[in-house]
């Protein structure tokens, strides 16, 4: 019962932390759009957390570059568990056109699974996904949690 309460509370107030691991910045702009008055994700209790320690959901954009690899793994370790990860944009889902780049370490889900094989990861494809799509993705991911 306690576990159910935990999961319910997590769904009611997911605080997000935004990690750019090598996106072109367009996905990041769409994420910021979600926080604007027009989309107002605070209605669902979603807040932008200032530190990964406060976060419940990591919003990862872009394929992981070799430089960002260690940083992403460190941020994932610093996030208080239970936490989820949302890969936003085609780059973060499948590497998109950067799949064969000499400087890429792989998609974020692979990089994070090296640290935690059971990480809860959801995907929102699109280049970039619309804010509506991001909100829908977040809601579906929380429903599946």
């Amino acid at each position, binding site marked *: 019962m*306690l576990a159910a*309460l*935990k999961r319910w*509370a*997590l769904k*009611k*107030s997911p605080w997000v932390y935004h990690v750019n691991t090598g996106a072109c910045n367009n996905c990041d702009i769409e994420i910021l759009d979600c926080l604007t*008055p027009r989309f*107002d994700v*605070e*209605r669902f*209790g979603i807040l932008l*957390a*200032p*530190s990964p*320690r*406060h976060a*419940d959901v990591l919003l990862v954009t872009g394929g992981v570059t070799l430089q960002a690899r260690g940083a992403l793994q460190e941020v994932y370790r*610093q996030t*208080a*568990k*239970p936490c989820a990860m949302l890969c936003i944009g085609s780059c973060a889902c499948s590497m998109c056109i950067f799949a064969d780049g000499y400087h890429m370490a792989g998609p974020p889900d692979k990089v994070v699974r090296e640290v935690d094989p059971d990480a809860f990861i959801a995907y929102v494809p699109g280049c970039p996904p619309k804010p509506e799509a991001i909100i829908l993705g977040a809601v579906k991911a929380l429903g599946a949690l």
Partner: protein
Amino acid sequence: MDLAWIVGVFVVAVLGTAVAGLVSKWIDRKVTARVQWRTGPPLLQPLYDILKLLGKETLVPRQARRAGFLLAPVIGFAAACVAAALLWAANIDPSRTLPGDLILVWYLLMVPSVALIIGGASSANPHAVIGASREMKLMLAYELPMLLAVLTSVVASGFTFNLGGLIQSAGAGVAGKITMAVGFIIGVLCTQAKLGLVPFDMAEAETEIQGGVYVEYSGPPLALWLLTRAMMFALMPIFLVTVFWGGFAGGAAGVATGALKYVLVVVLLVLIRNTNPRLRIDQAMRFFWYGLTPIAVVAVILAAAVF
């Protein structure tokens, strides 16, 4: 002062303050949202946040001072609880308060800020240390005018140092004095700084030092901080209403007008927070020392001279 009265008041006060604080937090977020043309969170959102954080993992940074880091939120919370009990006791029965409880409440209301400095400084994070140092400077800045403002009320009511006496003398016409109004306004501005609301939120500035003092907290300790902050968000308006505005005493009518005054103060704080940009720490210190302190000194002197 029998034991049942003390325990009863303590339990009622802590629960009541926690509920009032969470509701005030919601008022804060909702009014902010409405000011920005948003819908805003549901009523129970602050409660959801705290429940969620209670269910999460506690992380302690490797280089942090473990005891200080984890004890600081407990100290802050405990102080807020005792302050709540004293304030509520004075409002429930003004004739039965401790002598000199104004001074005790004053110090207890200071403890959460001190605990915040301890917690930030022991978390081994440069952002948190900057936040702690700013909080310390801010305390030095606002405590002096706030003390003088409270002194205005004390002087105006014939040097009464207990809350019950202040409530009774405010009921007897002292609350109508001009100097009391000046003291109240200064008190509201200092409360803004004490609660870390926007023009004076440099200790936790999300956009520059990432939450400052709170940056390394996670899970239950963070939940305790949020609850303490919510309780302070209720206690400071109650304190202001009690000291300057006659409190909540006087049966059902007193409670109703008291609640109205309380909501007014909360909305005032929220509107100040929404219409101002963040100051730098030196600007804030100049504002409190050179701006408010002289006015407060004049108010105290005039209060002694029966204005």
